[in-house]
């Protein structure tokens, strides 16, 4: 077990950076790494099947994370590309591939089965590439995503279709959709009403690993539930993500699951690499290469056709087609099923599983070629589609700490429709704000990953409105190191807390100063001062006080000097006020009023 882990990790650590460096992307690195350590490479590890099965969790987590970024409303907005483009893609690609297979003198049923399997792209490969290249939010990326999502949905009826095609009689699983809908409703219901209190309970234990464990349990539990009602685990976890996309624990979930997703998805690709049966290539290299390229060509052409029909930017059509060009993990499932119902032989299955696996490996290579050639030619046009509508979470302001202090700013920004992301560590607090329709996220602001998830990379301003000076310092340190572009605004509680910030020219706000000054103004008014005069006096005090604070900050730590400054300051202020009174008197005596 330990030995295996070492081998997997070594393969990943060696191959992925190497392929990244070559510009071929991490996916190909994992695949080649898998081939090398697998039974058909150096033979360090056998039993790819088992690993593949386990690491499918990586795909599940990936889709869950994708789902988290899409709330039901956004998903609904995708319905047209999803059904139109996705449906057209499966039909056109499967049709074209069938024709080619028929031309290779396969029988009809076999051609249809293999074509259907190949029409489905690899969600894991495509989404990894889109994410790696930051293309998920472009129009092309969204279309690709829609197509992938439709394919995931299409698997369900396809699984029912194969036995029927084999003549095994009508599907007896007519109740599946019914049960699937029930399961989705159940998850939606639990997500809405039960999840929040449970999360809060778990969060209150203050044990990070329990929170992480709960997050994983939640995702895998939902995936298992979905699988038990005949929905693929990937699709099920995607739906779970969508249903939880509006939850305030979203960022925390993202952070907790992300590393597991990364590792398991890597393992998944390694397992695919391990399962590539190179012996077939040795026996019939010609037919492997020929088939691979024929199918790839058919798929790319059909995808470009779809892209053309749905009118992309010309330069994006080919990219779209390449990203979706490979066969995917669902092909493995379909081919296994087809073999078990007798539609294809086990040799066919092995051959086409190999083709599909190889097609996954060709994607990064084709992409590289594309980028080296076509992209450069079209790059003059690039800027026209690089300007995409910003992600909805591209908020310019992040407020850390949404207590009574942070809320005021938050409400003002909200009124002005200025996008604001709110982070708070108090689950009760978030719960309370939720009642008022606020969107706030639970989490420890000193965590780099939470700041990242909150959009620190794209935000302009970070307001640190939390209590506790050391925590604020910690956040600032982190931000300076990783997001130096962020402008900081900091709440402090005491004068000494303010010193360090002032010396760094960070604007600080003493949290009770404003209200004490306001009160002073009103007290003066009650003593017979005019409203404007009271305001002037208080304003003057404030200016003086801030000046003194700045002076003190330069001598932070030197108590003697600070005391002297405080004494001097009191004297100065008295003098100042006296002068002011005298000035007023002069004004009157000079006859100004």
């Amino acid at each position, binding site marked *: 077990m330990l030995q295996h882990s070492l081998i997997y990790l070594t393969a990943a650590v060696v191959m992925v950076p190497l392929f990244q460096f070559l510009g071929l992307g991490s996916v190909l690195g994992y695949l080649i790494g898998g081939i090398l350590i697998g039974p058909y490479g150096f033979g360090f590890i056998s039993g790819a099947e088992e690993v593949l099965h386990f690491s499918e969790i990586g795909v599940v987590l990936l889709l869950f994370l994708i789902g988290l970024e899409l709330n039901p409303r956004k998903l609904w907005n995708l319905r047209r590309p999803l059904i139109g483009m996705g449906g057209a893609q499966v039909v056109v690609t499967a049709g074209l591939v069938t024709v080619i297979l028929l031309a290779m003198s396969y029988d009809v049923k076999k051609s249809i089965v293999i074509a259907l399997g190949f029409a489905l792209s690899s969600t894991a490969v495509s989404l990894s590439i889109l994410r790696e290249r930051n293309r998920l939010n472009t129009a092309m990326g969204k279309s690709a995503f829609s197509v992938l999502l439709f394919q995931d949905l299409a698997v369900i009826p396809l699984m029912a279709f194969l036995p029927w095609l084999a003549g095994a009689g009508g599907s007896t699983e007519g109740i599946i959709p019914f049960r699937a809908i029930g399961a989705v409703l159940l998850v939606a219901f639990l997500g809405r009403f039960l999840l929040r209190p449970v999360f809060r309970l778990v969060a209150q234990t203050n044990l990070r690993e329990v929170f992480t464990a709960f997050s994983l349990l939640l995702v895998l539990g939902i995936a298992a539930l979905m699988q038990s009602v005949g929905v693929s685990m990937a699709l099920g976890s995607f739906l779970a993500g969508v249903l939880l996309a509006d939850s305030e624990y979203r960022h925390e979930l993202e952070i907790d699951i992300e590393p597991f997703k990364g590792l398991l998805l890597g393992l998944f690709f390694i397992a695919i690499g391990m399962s590539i049966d190179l012996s077939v290539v040795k026996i019939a290299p010609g037919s492997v290469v020929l088939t691979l390229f024929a199918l790839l060509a058919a798929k790319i052409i059909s995808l470009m056709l779809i892209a053309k029909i749905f009118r992309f930017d010309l330069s994006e059509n080919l990219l779209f087609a390449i990203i979706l060009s490979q066969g995917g993990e669902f092909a493995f499932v379909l081919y296994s099923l087809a073999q078990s119902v007798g539609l294809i032989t086990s040799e066919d299955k092995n051959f086409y599983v190999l083709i599909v696996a190889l097609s996954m490996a060709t994607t990064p290579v084709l992409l590289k070629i594309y980028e080296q050639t076509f992209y450069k030619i079209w790059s003059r046009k690039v800027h026209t589609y690089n300007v995409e509508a910003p992600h909805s979470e591209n908020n310019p302001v992040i407020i850390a700490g949404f207590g009574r202090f942070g809320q005021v700013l938050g409400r003002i920004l909200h009124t002005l429709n200025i996008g604001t992301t709110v982070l708070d560590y108090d689950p009760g607090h978030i719960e309370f704000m939720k009642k008022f329709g606020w969107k706030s996220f639970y989490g420890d602001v000193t965590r780099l990953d939470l700041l990242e998830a909150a959009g620190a990379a794209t935000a302009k301003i970070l307001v640190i409105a939390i209590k506790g000076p050391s925590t604020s310092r910690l956040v600032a340190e982190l931000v300076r190191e990783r997001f130096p572009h962020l402008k900081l605004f900091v709440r402090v509680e005491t004068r000494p807390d303010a010193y360090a910030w002032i010396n760094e020219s960070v604007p600080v706000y003493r949290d009770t100063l404003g209200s004490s000054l306001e009160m002073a103004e009103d007290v003066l008014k009650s003593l017979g001062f005019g409203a404007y005069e*009271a305001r002037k006096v208080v304003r003057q005090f404030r200016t003086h006080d801030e000046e003194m604070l700045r002076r003190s900050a330069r001598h932070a730590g030197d108590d003697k000097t600070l005391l002297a400054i405080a004494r001097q300051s009191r004297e100065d202020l008295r003098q100042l006020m006296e002068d002011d009174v005298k000035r007023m008197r002069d004004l009157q005596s000079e006859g100004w009023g």
Partner: protein
Amino acid sequence: MKKTLFYFVHPVPRKSRTNRRVLEEIKLLPEVTVRDLYETYPHFHIDVDFEKNLLLAHDLIVFQHPMYWYSCPPLMKLWIDEVLERGFAYGEGGEALKGKFWMQIISTGGPETAYQRSGYNRFTISELLRPFEQTAELCQMHYLKPFLIQGVRQLSDLSIQDAAEGARHYLQDAINGKVEKFSSI
């Protein structure tokens, strides 16, 4: 009987002798709406709609203020800038103040003799007040002759009391339509 809106405009009334006395006298007049601009808007944030409604409800608008640098205190200027909007007070459709009356009660430090060609202020008060006269004109208001309390620096407490009572009588006359319209041209 003109419905009268009276604006008291002084930044630091606590330290004023004359203007505060005048205000106290004016407050003796029944049915005059008295407003203290600096007391109401110490943060210079004027409630424009509220002020406009007040204007609509009155016929005679009076400002009492000291002369600062040959003009009014800054909050009164801000009030003019913000409340007398186009489309309300002037310009297309701006006839809300048409036919109403504008009057000022003004204190000056310098004596009357200072406000003439030979004096150190070189201009007469009515010349210096021309921006206000024209403001009323553009709003199609009637500009009434201002009431002046001059040389307040030299005034004894007794004279101040006289001046304050004089201001009250003058305003009473204006309310009764006995103050003449004025033009410096």
